[in-house]
């Protein structure tokens, strides 16, 4: 486990070290000015959230259909990370919106479905905490429903006329903005992977602890 950590750790640290400099040098967006700089953390945090949600969904599917307990541990890690990165996205978004749109929150398709998806993973964690022993399978099913929402969130901005920028805006960034965005995106994705590995490690150690307790009883 340790060897896989080192390169990822260095990559994340390097990306995060360079990110603020790149952001600081990025030009001001013509209409929104400085507040647009939140973009460099807001969008990557959602990318990390989508990644974590998908990892949680796929791991849950494998655990549910193939019955492999180790994937359930990965799913828990994915769910927790979805909640953390979703929280960052859900806070940085309105901070940006306050200036750009003049209002903290707007009930349009993109924001609502993103909030719904985040609530599903919060429900996942609540279920695991209070559901008692048999709740792993049910939380896996919940994660599957959560993951079914991921494409819906992504497409919702294109289907309905929403005040939220279209997904195409990322591709059409001018190069000066594109570079810092890529750095931040890389930073967040590698941070997400790093935290996922750490969290899975924690779950594995907990499983080992349970094994030891069982062995103790024999």
């Amino acid at each position, binding site marked *: 486990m340790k060897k896989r950590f080192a390169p990822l750790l260095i990559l994340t640290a390097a990306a995060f070290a360079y990110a603020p400099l790149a952001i600081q040098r990025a030009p001001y967006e013509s209409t929104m000015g400085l507040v647009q700089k939140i973009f460099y953390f807001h969008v990557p945090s959602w990318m990390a959230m989508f990644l974590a949600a998908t990892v949680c969904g796929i791991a849950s599917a494998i655990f*549910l*259909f193939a*019955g492999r307990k180790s994937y359930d541990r990965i799913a828990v890690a994915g769910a927790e990370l979805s909640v953390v990165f979703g929280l960052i996205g859900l806070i940085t978004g309105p901070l940006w919106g306050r200036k750009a749109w003049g209002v903290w929150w707007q009930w349009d398709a993109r924001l*609502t*479905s993103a909030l*719904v998806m985040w*609530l*599903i993973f*919060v*429900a996942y964690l*609540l*279920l695991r905490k*209070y*559901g*008692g022993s*048999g*709740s792993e*399978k*049910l939380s*896996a*099913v*919940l994660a*599957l*429903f*959560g993951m*079914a*929402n991921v494409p*819906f969130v992504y497409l919702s901005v294109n289907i309905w006329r929403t005040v939220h920028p279209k997904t195409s805006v990322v591709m059409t960034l001018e190069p000066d903005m594109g570079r810092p965005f890529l750095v931040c995106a890389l930073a967040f994705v590698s941070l997400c992977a790093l935290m996922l590995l750490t969290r899975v490690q924690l779950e594995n150690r907990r499983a080992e602890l349970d094994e030891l307790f069982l062995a103790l009883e024999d």
Partner: protein
Amino acid sequence: MASESVVASGDRAMRSAPAARSSFLATAWLITRKDLVIEFRSREVVYTTLFFAVSCVLVFAFSFVKEGVAAQDAAAGILWIAIAFSGTLALGRAFERERQNDTLRALMLTPVDRPAVYIGKLAGVLALLAVVEAIVTPLVALMFGAPVLDHALLLAALLAAGTIGFAAVGTLFAAMLIRARSRDVLLPILLYPITIPVIIAGVRGTGVLFQADVDLPMARLWLSILVFFDLVFVTLALWTFEPAMKE
């Protein structure tokens, strides 16, 4: 008790093995009919859910009344909230009965295939909610002056599609929550985040029907979205019901 003639050591158990298992729909209907017969006899869940839905609508009606006239545009939202809340109550009660008598366990011991059990239970819950909606919708029309009869067919389709989406997820979670601790509080916590898109589509579609200049294509758009959600949820539920019910 006339004791059956004991067949010496002949392998009776072997010869009279049961015929092939009954088909998917027959099994689903078997379970739905059983649920409806039980519900018809006790009527416990129908009355409690109905009373709850009516009181729900009244509470909202009082909160939205301005100078004696209830807010007209609130009708759609209130109708769907009443459906969602009474749906959760009905699901909780229906499966609480299965848990107390541990009858779902006996059903799982029979060779019926599990998705058929799911569809059977789902149909039972849908029938129950249809009764509740048949009474709550006119009530909302009465109290809020909502033009329910103008596009009755489209409204019925919206209500049906929305209720199917809501109950499809609800039945799956209620069945799996049978063993969980604190299931009464967990069912709404799990159900509402997943079914919020269904409720939004239902409210928006119904709202469009209730407003003065009815925008039919918009209502049909929301109906198609609801049908899309129903398909996604029911297929996902059918896939996951079998592995999820295994301890």
